[in-house]
């Protein structure tokens, strides 16, 4: 089997006496959507923070496309292709949607002096790309609006758009459906469906409908440990998982 895109080995993190992540092992394969589910407080957000480099693990290693990135800074991981979105919407509210996306776009040419002197508005190529991302996440026609003026659902779309703008190889999605109504959820699922096959995703989500529709494989995190990791059909009938988490929700 080929090298996994993401290979997490024995990752641990505690806050004082609280063991948030304990010896987590998890592999995301090339091309797949891998969902990570678990009850509140299971350590999902801590896990994402460690993968994205915003939090250092106490123990263990993170391998991304075969390379050890455990001690790599957050912004270098983004350049390597490992990008996260946030559970609590994290955008630039005073800036326009287009500016938000253009700020997140990767610059291939070394910027140098043009970065200092060329007017921001004159970066036409950047804004053209930003426009495409906006359309991709369903924000066409909303580009000129301040991000803070968007509806909650649209802000969630922009949240995903910011991550997409960096051209990720593996997208870490921290509860993209958080706080969305049924219609908005449906739009978000459609958006993520459209991305399937073009990039890998590690999807942390509470919405079981979304998880079972999107995921190729599912891992279950309970009390800081991985309880099970398998295809949805197997997870669905796993008695431990049902007891620990799923309950009657997918009866």
């Amino acid at each position, binding site marked *: 089997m080929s090298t996994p895109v993401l290979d997490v080995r024995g990752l641990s993190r505690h806050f004082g006496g609280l063991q948030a992540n304990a010896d987590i092992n998890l592999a995301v394969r090339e091309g797949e959507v891998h969902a990570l589910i678990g009850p509140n407080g299971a350590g999902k957000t801590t896990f994402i923070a460690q993968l*994205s480099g*915003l939090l250092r693990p106490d123990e263990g290693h993170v391998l991304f496309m075969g390379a050890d990135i455990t001690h790599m800074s957050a*912004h270098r991981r983004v*350049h390597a292709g490992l*990008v996260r979105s946030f559970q609590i919407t994290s955008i630039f509210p005073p800036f326009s949607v287009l500016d938000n996306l253009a700020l997140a776009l990767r610059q291939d040419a070394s910027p140098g002096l043009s970065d200092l002197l060329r007017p921001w508005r004159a970066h036409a190529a950047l804004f053209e790309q930003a426009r495409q991302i906006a359309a991709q996440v369903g924000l066409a026609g909303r580009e000129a609006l301040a991000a803070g003026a968007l509806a909650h659902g649209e802000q969630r779309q922009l949240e995903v758009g910011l991550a997409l703008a960096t051209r990720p190889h593996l997208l870490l999605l921290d509860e993209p459906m958080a706080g969305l109504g049924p219609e908005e959820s449906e739009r978000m699922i459609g958006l993520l469906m459209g991305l399937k096959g073009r990039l890998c995703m590690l999807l942390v989500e509470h919405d079981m409908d979304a998880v079972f529709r999107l995921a190729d494989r599912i891992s279950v995190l309970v009390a800081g440990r991985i309880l099970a990791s398998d295809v949805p059909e197997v997870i669905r009938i796993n008695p431990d998982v049902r007891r620990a988490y799923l309950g009657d929700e997918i009866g």
Partner: protein
Amino acid sequence: MKAGWRLAVVIAVLVGLPLLLQAADQGFYIGFATRMLIYALAAASLNFILGHGGMLSFGHAAFVGAGAYTVGILAAEGVTNAWVAWPSAMLVAALAALAIGAMSLRTRGVYFIMITLAFAQMMYYIFVSFKAYGGDDGLNMAGRSVIGMGLDLKDELTWYYLCLGLLILVAGFLNRIVDARFGRILEAIRVNETRMEAVGHATFGRRLAAFVLAGAVAGLAGALLANHAGFVSPKLMHWTQSGMLMVMVIVGGAGHRYGGPIGAVVLLGLEEVMAEFTQYSQLGVGLVLLAIVLFAPGGLALMFGNRRQA
């Protein structure tokens, strides 16, 4: 471009001002106006990091002082060429900003305010005890820097126009950067640094670069200030000086293109006017500042109609 016209009018007034003062037999005020221009430059440099970058530096006077002392010490050692002394002042101030910034920018909020204040006070006490160059008493300069090109900087009119030219050039350069991608990134870091990190920006490096650039410009203001007064003293680095620069930026409009210069002109002008009428001038200045902060919380620049860009 309405804003462009307004700027052109302001520059025209500034160019005509000393001639008007001379005609009205008030030539004394040319020196005062020059002082305003120099402080406008210092305030513009602080506004770059405070207003646009969100870095509440409470030690900006340290860089002004570093620039001033560089010029003063060089002059004491016989180097009076402006083409050597002024760039040296900027370089020394930039290096000081690099060292202080590299340590301070790892902290946030109140800690950043306190650590920049602490570093500036450290420099203040170092120069107080620096007896070889005047210590507490400061250091007198024999004359102004020599710039060549047939210009005599001892002539008040020439000196005024040189300071005006430098202010327009350098503050304009800072505004140009604010309008470029660098400025956008700097403001985005102010708004949401974690997100900038998460989309791949090396935020620490950006903030440090801005901090060093602001330090260099403050160093130039210091070099001009030393020449203007013909005197350098540790007081230039005292925390009250840093506080005054901060007040200028906040009163003028933090994050506004002309916030720094407007604040410098208003504050120094206010002090001058109040001193004419009462010996309790600082009380009067304080009350007016209080009123400005209460009734124009975004700074005076907003009253001139140029809305702050997000």
